[in-house]
């Protein structure tokens, strides 16, 4: 330790800041670079027809799961609160934007329509994030986790039971059935209960999904490097100390949670504009999905947004690529998950690994 202190002390404070800034820059460059390079490679593969149609179909989902993982990492890593309801925010973004696109399907050109749908999806999810955040953020730890799970399930259930129609007299909503809407003959059913929304225009594609991913990366990285972000992290590290320096706990927790919900909503927009029938099914929006995203975040490294993107992409593709093993793929996946956790997190394993690494390093030094 005294060694590092001396080296630190010998450098001028200003240059320390500069070096750290440079390191952060390089880090950002790597993060954004990875996404762009991978995107370029996949695009080339697609253009040259080297990608199977099955794989092509996986690209947009891969990107939107990366986006939700970034959103959840903001919540878990930066805010420090475990949310198991992010699939719910994704669901809200998906439905609100799909609804808009469906209503204006024939009266607007695709590009501005998708742009507006995106804005609406993000805004509505942010609104719900805010509203749900008010009660949820009063809780702590696992209580908070289970309540976010509850909210996610409530959202899914209500959307499953929701019927919404539009006719010359305006909108009609019901939680019973289509008949209860009492639509005029000219009316159309927009949301058909568990059947969901059919025929949303296919407005999202891999390029758009990557742009959204880059945007969410940028926003989260910027937030972390801002005064608001530091306030949020200080609450995460020590709430009592944060209060003692005048930080408004509720305000900043709400801010981070709302942004996180908004980004999850953006992923939902990509989702709903990439699928012909949007249903609030457990397969896409149940708590299992929230848990799967949490797995991405933890394996990618809590607080590391680059890790989230890589883990989400790899882990999403992994079971799909293991399709050859068919029956065994999820089994292998679960065993890999358990083993990776044990190796990476068990204190004994970590100590052993550090020991090996230290031995390796010193061995290398001696050679030099």
């Amino acid at each position, binding site marked *: 330790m005294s060694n590092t202190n001396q080296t630190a002390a010998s450098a001028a*404070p200003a240059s320390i*800041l500069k070096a750290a800034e440079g390191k952060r820059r390089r880090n950002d460059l790597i993060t954004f670079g990875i996404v762009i390079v991978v995107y370029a490679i996949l695009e080339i593969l697609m253009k040259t027809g080297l990608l199977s149609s099955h794989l092509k179909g996986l690209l947009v989902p891969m990107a939107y799961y990366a986006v939700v993982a970034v959103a959840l990492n903001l919540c878990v890593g930066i805010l420090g609160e475990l949310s198991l309801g992010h699939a719910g925010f994704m669901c809200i973004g998906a439905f609100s934007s799909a609804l808009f696109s469906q209503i204006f399907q024939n009266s607007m050109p695709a590009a501005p329509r998708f742009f507006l749908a995106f804005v609406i999806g993000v805004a509505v999810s942010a609104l719900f994030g805010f509203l749900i955040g008010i009660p949820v953020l009063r809780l702590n730890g696992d209580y908070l986790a289970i309540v976010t799970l509850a909210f996610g399930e409530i959202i899914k259930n209500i959307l499953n039971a929701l019927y919404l129609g539009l006719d010359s007299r305006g909108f009609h909503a019901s939680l019973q059935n289509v008949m209860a809407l009492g639509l005029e003959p000219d009316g159309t059913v927009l949301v058909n209960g568990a059947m969901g929304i059919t025929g949303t225009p296919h407005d999202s594609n891999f390029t758009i999904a990557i742009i959204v991913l880059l945007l969410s990366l940028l926003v989260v990285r910027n937030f972390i490097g801002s*005064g608001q*972000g530091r306030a949020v992290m200080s609450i995460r590290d020590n709430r009592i*100390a*944060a209060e003692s*320096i*005048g930080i408004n706990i509720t305000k900043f927790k709400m801010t981070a949670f709302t942004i996180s919900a908004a980004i999850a909503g953006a992923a939902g927009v990509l989702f709903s504009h990439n699928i012909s029938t949007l249903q609030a099914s457990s397969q896409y929006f149940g708590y299992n999905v929230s848990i799967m995203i949490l797995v991405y975040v933890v394996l990618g490294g809590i607080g590391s947004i680059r890790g989230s993107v890589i883990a989400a992409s790899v882990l999403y593709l992994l079971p799909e690529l293991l399709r050859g093993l068919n029956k065994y793929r999820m089994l292998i996946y679960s065993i890999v998950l358990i083993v990776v956790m044990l190796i990476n997190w068990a204190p004994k394993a970590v100590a052993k690994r550090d020991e090996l690494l230290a031995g390796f390093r010193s061995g290398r030094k001696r050679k030099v």
Partner: protein
Amino acid sequence: MALLEVNNLCIQFGGLRAVDDFNLTIEKGELYGLIGPNGAGKTTVFNLLTGVYRPNEGIIRLDGEDITGHRTTEINRDGIARTFQNIRLFADMPVIDNVRAALGGQYHYSLFESLFHVGKYKATEQAMTERAMSLLAVFHLDQYAEVMASNLPYGQQRKLEIARAMATNPKLLLLDEPAAGMNPNETAELMDTIELIRDKFDITILLIEHDMKLVSGICEKLTVLNFGRVLAQGETKAVLSDPEVVKAYLGES
């Protein structure tokens, strides 16, 4: 007018009166000590002054303004900052960000500017960083600016906590056992630092301490607390030679 005026402060936990009929007046610029045996209620007084607890009775006035019942966050804005007996840093943040977090109340830009790093973001951040660095320099912590707070040696962590509290620009600084766990050299250095900040920032300091050398060395006035009640109050020398204090605090010998 006194900077801090506390009248008849009481708090009860269950049946226990942790602090009872506590009175304290601190003039602007004073370096004031609060001493007493373990469990006398010293930290409870700090928690009352900073709004962690609400008093059952009594009034707290800061600079003439009644701040009784204000919440912790408000009280910091009213002008009281503190450190903690068991150090509470933002452990997973670099040293400079511990201070910048505390400067947040004085440097503003909108959420939009922070999400897209546009507008006032850059200029404000730069000003904030400069301010943080100059503050860290006072405590000789500037060379550790980018070190994680949890990786600092113990003595430096205590200093960082003071620097962070100072960043909120307080009128009154409360230090809860700043020398706890320090060796004599570190304590001597800390005494210099405390006197330095008092003079440099023109601030009033109230500190809890067990280290008698530090207390008698820098405190101008003292209050001795015993079983939640004031045992003695006044000039340091007079208080420390009070036979009651000697008996209660230093034990009968």
